[in-house]
């Protein structure tokens, strides 16, 4: 039984006792604690490291909590472990920590719309609360920010994000020792505009949940090697958060992959793999999509250097990247499925097989697995007979002009070929992704909405031959809607016109002033940065 100090929580919700002395000392002045260790609010909440960090910042700014950086880290470490999310709960909202902007269309419109006017819905789903705590939180939020339909939001979140779940009960019982993540991992990555990478990363223990890293990445496209050194922390047994720096530090272009990156990864509960994003840029617009795998004793196929073959094509070169490949591979060691014949193995090392394949004219259209020495890579290659359309990705995006206090925000585009799927319609889930088109097979252009002259390029910015958009150097103090268009040089539509794809880009100002307050951009939202300074912004 909880006392009245347990703050009228509904029956069925057992609070999580707080046992950390620093939390009790720093938070106890406001969050009273009963004889069972139940602290007001804190015992009825769970969240990610970012969630607790944000809560702590709020307490520092609004409630005058004084705390040193090492103490703050201890608090976040304790809370995101003892009052954290289970790995299965954290994975669906990892995009928030990874600073991505995905669709959130699975959330009911009315609920989502109330929250996402100010922040991603992932921020709400990064918390788990008791029914009473959701009500307290949403009521306060509704009063402060005029959130519509608070009762419906409380009902939704109480059901979708309860304090107690089977996943949390299992994880909190299991997560009693440090994760076993030191040693060598196989590393694959992709970087928009630069393609795929492969390599390895060594993880060394460096104290209580700290780790040093040394990574080597090789570009599949041009063989360039990246060396990265980093240091990270693991919160809650699976939440990797850190920084790394390329070896070629110094004066770097904004999109240089040697830039210092932040790292946010999700480590699988069985510690067999980890995945996430290494990102940088003023708006976190650049980033490697990263996956780690534990090495196997057996040959492992990690990736192919191409995404598709056309039916009837001959002598296609393809490189298979992996680990522990036996030297002396023969065509019989590789399998691309029926209708694709491995004609010969051109070269072979322990990490790479260079092969040549023919594709039959009647090979089945679709995605298929590829196998090397018994190691299968699911859906590794697409077989197609025509390109039906080109999609520019991201389909919708942001860039930003700079000013004396804000660097410019850039955007890398890619043009991906697609063949329509069996349903016969374009832009449906069964369409076949053929992979990015080679920049050499494309021309890129920008066009400001409703305009057709070249003058606007000087005002808004321009896109390079590799699809990299750079905003104009001068801030025109306006937002612009822009089409970024990729035109295929060889692929034509049924009317004989070159295939084109368009991405909708909005180029924004970096900040603006409204009713005496200055607003600045943070990823995909404007943040009130406080009163505008007289004579300033």
């Amino acid at each position: 039984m909880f006392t009245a100090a347990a703050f009228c929580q509904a029956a069925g919700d057992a609070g999580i006792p707080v046992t950390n002395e620093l939390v009790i000392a720093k938070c106890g002045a406001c969050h009273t604690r009963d004889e069972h260790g139940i602290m007001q609010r804190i015992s009825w909440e769970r969240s990610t490291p970012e969630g607790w960090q944000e809560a702590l910042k709020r307490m520092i700014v609004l409630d005058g909590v004084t705390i040193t950086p090492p103490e703050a880290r201890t608090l976040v470490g304790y809370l995101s472990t003892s009052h954290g999310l289970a790995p299965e709960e954290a994975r669906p909202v990892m995009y928030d920590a990874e600073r991505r902007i995905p669709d959130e269309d699975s959330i009911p419109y009315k609920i989502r719309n109330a929250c996402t006017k100010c922040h991603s819905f992932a921020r709400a789903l990064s918390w788990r609360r008791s029914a009473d705590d959701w009500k307290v939180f949403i009521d306060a939020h509704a009063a402060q920010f005029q959130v519509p339909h608070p009762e419906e939001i409380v009902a939704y979140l109480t059901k979708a994000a309860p304090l107690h779940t089977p996943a949390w009960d299992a994880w909190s019982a299991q997560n009693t020792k440090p994760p076993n993540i030191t040693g060598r991992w196989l590393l694959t990555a992709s970087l928009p505009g630069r393609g795929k990478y492969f390599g390895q990363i060594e993880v060394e223990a460096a104290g209580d949940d700290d780790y040093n890293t040394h990574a080597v990445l090789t570009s599949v496209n041009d063989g360039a090697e990246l060396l990265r050194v980093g240091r990270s922390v693991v919160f809650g047994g699976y939440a990797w958060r850190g920084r790394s720096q390329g070896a070629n530090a110094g004066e770097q272009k904004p999109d240089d992959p040697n830039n210092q990156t932040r790292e946010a990864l999700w480590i699988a509960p069985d510690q067999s793999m980890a995945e996430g994003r290494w990102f940088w840029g003023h708006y976190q617009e650049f980033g490697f999509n990263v996956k780690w795998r534990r090495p196997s004793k057996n040959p492992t196929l990690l990736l192919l250097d191409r995404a598709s073959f056309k039916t009837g094509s001959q002598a296609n070169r393809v490189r298979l990247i992996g680990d522990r490949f036996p030297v002396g591979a023969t065509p019989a060691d590789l399998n691309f499925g029926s209708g694709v014949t491995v004609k010969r193995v051109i070269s072979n090392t322990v990490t790479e097989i260079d092969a040549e394949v023919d594709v039959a004219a009647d090979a089945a259209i679709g995605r298929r697995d590829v196998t090397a020495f018994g190691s299968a890579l699911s859906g590794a290659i697409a077989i197609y007979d025509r390109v039906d359309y080109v999609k520019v990705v991201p389909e919708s995006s942001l860039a930003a002009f700079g000013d004396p206090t804000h660097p410019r925000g850039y955007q890398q585009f890619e043009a991906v070929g697609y063949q329509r799927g069996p349903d016969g319609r374009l832009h449906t889930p069964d369409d076949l992704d053929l992979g990015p088109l080679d920049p050499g097979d494309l021309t890129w252009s920008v066009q400001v909405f409703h305009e057709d002259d070249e003058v606007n390029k000087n005002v808004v910015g321009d896109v390079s031959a590799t699809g990299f958009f750079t905003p104009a150097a001068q801030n025109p103090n306006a937002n612009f809607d822009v089409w970024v268009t990729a035109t295929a040089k060889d692929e034509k539509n049924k009317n004989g016109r070159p295939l084109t794809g368009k991405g909708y880009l909005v180029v924004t100002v970096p900040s603006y002033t409204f009713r005496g307050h200055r607003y600045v951009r943070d990823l995909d939202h404007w943040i009130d940065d406080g009163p505008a300074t007289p004579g300033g912004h």
Partner: protein
Amino acid sequence: MKHTLLALFAIAAGFLVIPYSAYAHHGFAGFDRNSVVTYEGTVTDFHYVNPHSVVEFDVKDDKGQVQNWQGEMTSPSHLAPLGWKASSLEAGDHVTVSGYRAKNGRPTLWVTKIIANGKEMKIDWKD
């Protein structure tokens, strides 16, 4: 990215003083809302994206000259509850599009009504 960018787009469009171009993202000042025009044509592309979904379509005039038009609509967040999908329109579909034409004479309009292959597709646009 169909929804989350919307907050930033909406706030930016509403609050900014826009000295450079009436069409910079993106109020309705650039459209003539005093009259509705209607054009019939063939879809050349459809973009189901934020901040505005856009249908591009070819219109043939009396002399047989073809001009490509851009019809702008609300965001997928508003269209999806009405049944819209990325595949709702595609190249080759026959459309009749009504809306407010751009004041500067460019072949652009803000769509208030659209009929595709003989069937009206609800937009629920309120002025």
